[in-house]
């Protein structure tokens, strides 16, 4: 029972939410947001995709293996932890600074954001692998 209205609208809305969730992720450090919320938002987007187009279509548009997201995310977070360890500092010490990019002007980068990105990947991986398994069963 495909509904064309849903399909067309969701294609548009999809990008709105996706951009919004990345936005949430990147500014997590200074304002409400962060890995968990952004991860959930992105999974919400993929769910919408599932709802509208069905899991089959999802594979053509987004050939991502969500189960791989989990180890990759964990690896990134672990690395952000291990790198300072290698440098002699205690595990997971984070560095941060301010850099000004040409377009965006002065922005603040922090290694904690990398860690957050790892968390983001894990959360997306977890939610989506559960849902895809349930959905496609």
């Amino acid at each position: 029972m495909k509904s064309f209205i849903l399909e067309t609208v969701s294609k548009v809305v999809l990008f709105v939410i996706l951009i919004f969730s990345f936005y949430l992720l990147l500014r997590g450090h200074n304002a409400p947001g962060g890995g968990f919320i952004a991860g959930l938002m992105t999974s919400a987007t993929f769910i919408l995709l599932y709802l509208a187009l069905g899991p089959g279509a999802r594979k053509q548009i987004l050939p991502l293996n969500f189960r791989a997201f989990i180890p990759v995310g964990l690896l990134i977070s672990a690395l952000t932890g291990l790198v300072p360890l290698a440098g002699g500092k205690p595990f997971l010490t984070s560095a941060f600074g301010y850099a000004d990019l040409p377009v965006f002007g002065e922005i603040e980068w922090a290694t904690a954001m990398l860690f957050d990105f790892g968390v983001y990947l894990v959360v997306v991986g977890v939610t989506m692998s559960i849902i895809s398994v349930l959905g496609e069963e």
Partner: protein
Amino acid sequence: MLFALVLAPFVLAALVPVVRKVAGPRIGLYTLPLPILLFVYLLSKTAEISQGKVIESAWEWVPSLGLSFALRLDGWSLLFTLLVTGIGSLVLLYSHFYLGPDEDLTKFYLYLLSFMGSMLGVVLSANLLLTYVFWELTSFTSFLLIGFWSFREQSRYGAQKALLITAFGGFVMLAGFALIYLVTGSLNIETVLANKGKILSSPYYPYILLLILVGAFTKSAQVPFHIWLPNAMEAPTPISAFLHSATMVKAGLYLVGRLLPILGGTELWFHTVTLVGAATMVTGALLAVKQDDLKALLAYSTISQLGLIMLLFGIGTPFSTAAAVFHLFNHAAFKGALFMVVGIIDHETGTRDINLLGGLAKKMPLSAVITGLTAFSMAGVPPLAGFLSKELFYEATLETGTMGLVSASLPWIAVGASVFTFIYSALLVLFVFFGKQRGETPKHPHEAPGLMLVGPGLLAAITVIVGLWPDLFGGSLINPAVTTITGKAYDVHYHLWHGITTPLLMSSITVALGALGYTLVGRIRAWFKSVRARVTPNYFYDQGLRLMIAGSRKLTSRYMTGLLRDYIVYILATLVTLVGYTYLIKAGGARTLQLARINPYELIMTGLLVAAALIVIRTHSRMVGVLALGVVGFLVSTLWVVFRAPDLALTQLIVETIGLILFLLVFQYLPSLSRSTEPPGKKAVNLAISAAVGILMAVLTITALGTRLYEPISAFYVDNSLKLGGGRNIVNVILVDFRGLDTMGEITVLGVAAMGVFALIKLKGKNMQ
């Protein structure tokens, strides 16, 4: 260097699977060099050690527990390490021939080598806790080895029995060590030895002694706990030769020897150890005579010999310790050889039943010679080593001196037991190898391959050499061991002939009575077999185990009803009672509850919230329930927003929605929600408990917020989150930066949970088809 000695076997054990691919069936020979190497290294050290030098090395393993990986090579441990590595290499060579290529050799050698490592650990460890660790390792590896042929029910039973009893003993011993730590404040054997006065005078002394002795008695198969050794004979013969005659069962004796200077010397020590030793010696000898299976006969004979050595340690005089060490050395040699020969007989003739065997000497001359030498050495026939240790044994029993009735009766018990020892040794030799062929043996007997006889041959040679020139080993091996135990220098020369003395008289009586006994052996065996004792330790063990299992099953089935509801009720009920009790009684009820001002707006919101929650409970259809739950979530998140916690609100919202979708997905599989038809009684219980938990939580949170015990750490985060973390969103900075490790943990848990769900669903899918 000692670390290498202990850890090398473990490392090689780990490599066995790899080596197996290269070596194929000849893996036994590939693993042989290691024990030989260790043996040679130890031999090179004997010169220094016999001068009293001690090699030590320590490494702080768990300082907080006082557990340091401290190893110590002195006279007493040197003897044992030589035994372990020496007999170990012979056993490895022997098992190469004994086990066919189709056996699971990887598993066999892996277990065997790890046993060797743990046995070396036991005898070298200078820290009591470390001894315990290796002690349990030996029990564990022996469990694996006994149960090697796991397809046979008997070996599984034997392995379990051995593990249960020896591990039980280990635990009891650990309690003893704990008490020692309590009294002396240290677990290192040296320091414990230093303030041994404290232990002897402390009220805990009897408990320490008895607890540790139980550990030693279970391991060395003394009387009440001896029942596991005969069942352990289910293991392949090389294992019986190695573990259950030469090394593992002697760990108990090693421990008794090691702790003799600390705990020994008192009357309690004398009575317990000597009596138990004597009782074991006698029962072992008596039971050995009536056995039909050769290995069982040897097993009971080992129990009897161990009892003999334990008895000597019980007497505790330097002379008796020397006798004990000497006999320990001899026993390891001849019993190892006997086991291997029995293995050869089993291998060649296909049976170990004494009634079927007979007249094998013609077909297996070499084995006959080896068995003759070793069995008669055990019987105490001059000029073999056994005779000398029997002499020392008699002399030690004679001069126990002051201990009244017990010391008077010791010599007679000794002679009595030795008579029976003579009978079953004669059985082993004459009955099996000479006389006429009794029954049909499944396989036609012929001599074992040459190399297979090297092990037993070498050991037999040792018994002969030690018999003729005892002093050869006396100076370098026996005396240093005795000096370490007694603490005083012990330098005695051993020689075969002591002149006409009472021990010689006792020996000749034993031989005479033994020979006489052998002539009537048929009638004695029949008579012994007819004695059917009903209440034996075996009976206790089997019944005890059965009752324990049945009892625990009955108990758990009463409260483990299988209903999720009951478990939740248990958990919550305990929560409420415990926390409620401490709160109301201990903390004296509610503190001053400073309640913040509640503006009307929040009241409406919470009102709506409660209404939606009620819908969830009252509804019949699952859908409405889920939907109402969603509404509850949404309202809670609005409260978050109102109280200016946007992060929480966001997360709550999204989780609500995705939760809703997950619910929908799952509904396709769930059966329709049947009205919960619980009896009113149970519903009342549910209501009561949920109400109690609700109130409890509310009260707790209010008081918690009300009281200010410690300076809240939020202040730290508020001012540092920008400076250190570089972010204004404190919650996120904490989550990702300050408490990064927790988040790391959380996401790992998330990952694992996802894998779990995935596996569950995939597996369900698979067996559904």
